[in-house]
């Protein structure tokens, strides 16, 4: 049994996207900036990919900038918002405590440059409200950045409401939609989104490519200087095969979005139901406003990395927010932000499904996880203390 249940980390490329990329590499190797026939053929592919992506986001083609991925898009959007604000003497930026590091670390950099960063708290399910954003907006607020859906706990934020608040106050609004694009309906115009980041490999496209939507009239700051590619806002010869693959994968994901979501939601809820039978476990994130394929749970008395290694030995590939897997001393900042104590956050498990997963795989996971949790609890001094009543159960 081999079950890939880490689709929030990355997805398997779709056959259509892969084929489109190979076809592009084989027959369309020209540089889109070249004036000759091969170059112009490549330029046409680039235009088509941009038009397709724009249409599916409710944007205009000239509002789509191709980048190397979600992190670059986030960096460029935040730096743009900061620069535009600074020109008007506005140096206050609002975001949340549960953003991806691509956002949080960029904001940290801006803080060192003199910007005032306000990270909003989230509630126990990971929500930030439009009211909280509105209450935080000041005269000198340059930018609001709130993620569309959280990568760890799957909570879907009220983006349209936050967008409306920002528009009403005339504040730029960016959303990191890396986990949402291709999975949830996005309409940048209707949702009053000024800038949006997405990444192809989260929706069965290739790695190393993404896009930044930037509403017309917003003057983007360059991260990379050089040629006139991407209307002078992102230099460097375009990664055409990847862009073509991304557009293809996005078309597919959007065309099948509702049927995929239905299938995933059913598997997700069965998985949550099955794993919730484990004593002293808790679901992280909201039950309903949740990414269709996301399951994130904590099991008291165990540590996530050992759980992951044992799951892997049993053919199940997943992820965790424990310190050992986060590469830092602290467990996931998202799990801490929703109020979990450190010792509980160390015992988290994230399973993220795609349409490639099957109900049979879900049943296998439901059978294996309790066995492994039980085995680890059996050798855990923390569990021993919990059982003896020397330590209080938190969940």
């Amino acid at each position, binding site marked *: 049994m081999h079950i890939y249940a880490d689709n929030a980390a990355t997805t398997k490329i779709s056959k259509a996207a892969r084929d489109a990329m190979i076809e592009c590499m084989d027959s369309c190797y020209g540089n889109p900036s070249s004036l000759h026939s091969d170059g112009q053929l490549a330029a046409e592919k680039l235009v088509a990919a941009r038009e397709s992506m724009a249409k599916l986001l409710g944007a205009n083609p000239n509002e789509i900038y191709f980048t190397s991925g979600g992190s670059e898009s986030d960096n460029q959007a935040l730096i743009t918002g900061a620069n535009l604000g600074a020109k008007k003497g506005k140096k206050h930026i609002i975001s949340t405590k549960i953003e991806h590091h691509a956002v949080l670390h960029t904001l940290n950099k801006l803080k060192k440059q003199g910007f005032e960063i306000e990270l909003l708290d989230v509630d126990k399910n990971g929500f930030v409200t439009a009211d909280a954003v509105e209450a935080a907006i000041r005269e000198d607020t340059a930018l609001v950045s709130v993620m569309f859906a959280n990568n760890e706990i799957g909570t879907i934020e009220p983006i349209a409401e936050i967008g409306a608040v920002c528009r009403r106050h005339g504040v730029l609004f960016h959303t990191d939609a890396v986990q949402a694009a291709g999975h949830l309906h996005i309409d940048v115009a209707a949702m009053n989104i000024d800038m949006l980041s997405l990444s192809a490999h989260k929706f069965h496209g290739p790695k190393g490519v993404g896009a930044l939507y930037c509403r017309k009239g917003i003057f983007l700051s360059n991260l990379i200087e050089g040629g006139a590619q991407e209307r002078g806002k992102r230099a460097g010869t375009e990664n055409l095969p990847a862009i073509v693959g991304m557009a293809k994968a996005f078309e597919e994901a959007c065309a099948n979005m509702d049927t995929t979501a239905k299938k995933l939601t059913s598997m997700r809820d069965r998985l949550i139901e099955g794993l919730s039978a484990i004593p002293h476990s808790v679901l992280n994130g909201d039950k309903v406003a949740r990414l269709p394929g996301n399951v994130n749970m904590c099991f008291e008395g165990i*540590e996530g*990395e*050992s759980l992951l290694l044992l799951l892997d030995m049993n053919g199940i590939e997943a992820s965790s927010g*424990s310190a*050992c897997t986060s590469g830092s001393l602290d467990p996931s900042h998202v799990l801490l932000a929703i109020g979990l104590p450190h010792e509980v956050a160390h015992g988290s498990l994230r399973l993220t499904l795609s349409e490639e997963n099957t109900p049979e795989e879900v049943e296998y996971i439901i059978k294996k996880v309790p066995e492994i949790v039980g085995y680890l609890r059996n050798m*855990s*001094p*923390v569990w021993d203390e919990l059982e003896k009543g020397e330590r209080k159960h938190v969940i």
Partner: protein
Amino acid sequence: MLYSEKVMDHFQNPRNVGKIDDADGVGEVGNAKCGDIMRMYLKIDDNGIITDVKFNTFGCGSAIATSSMATEMIKGKSVDEALTLSNKAVVEALDGLPAHKIHCSVLAEEAVKAAVKDYYDKKGIAYDEELFKGIDSCESCHD
């Protein structure tokens, strides 16, 4: 691979997992907040030989593997020999650990020392405090 074959072996098939109800010395180091706790149980005979050793560990793969290896390395040894067990020796016996996992081996060394200290305390055996200085300082902890 993140871990050596030896680490994976000791993680998958940990030696000496369990408890000793009438242990002569029990030591616990680390804390749940940091994500690893090791508890070690020693059975020591009248000649000061460790006749049995068991462990319970809450932690990552390398925390479990270092606990397992440390128990193997001190079983059948004298208490004095056990006290000379260094984290470096545990790491070497496991064919190495990733840099950010070295603190797990420190915990293993400290767990052995804490259990011996408990044995000394219980038996009323005098010892040099210096020997156990810094145990459970949890160097990886931030507060």
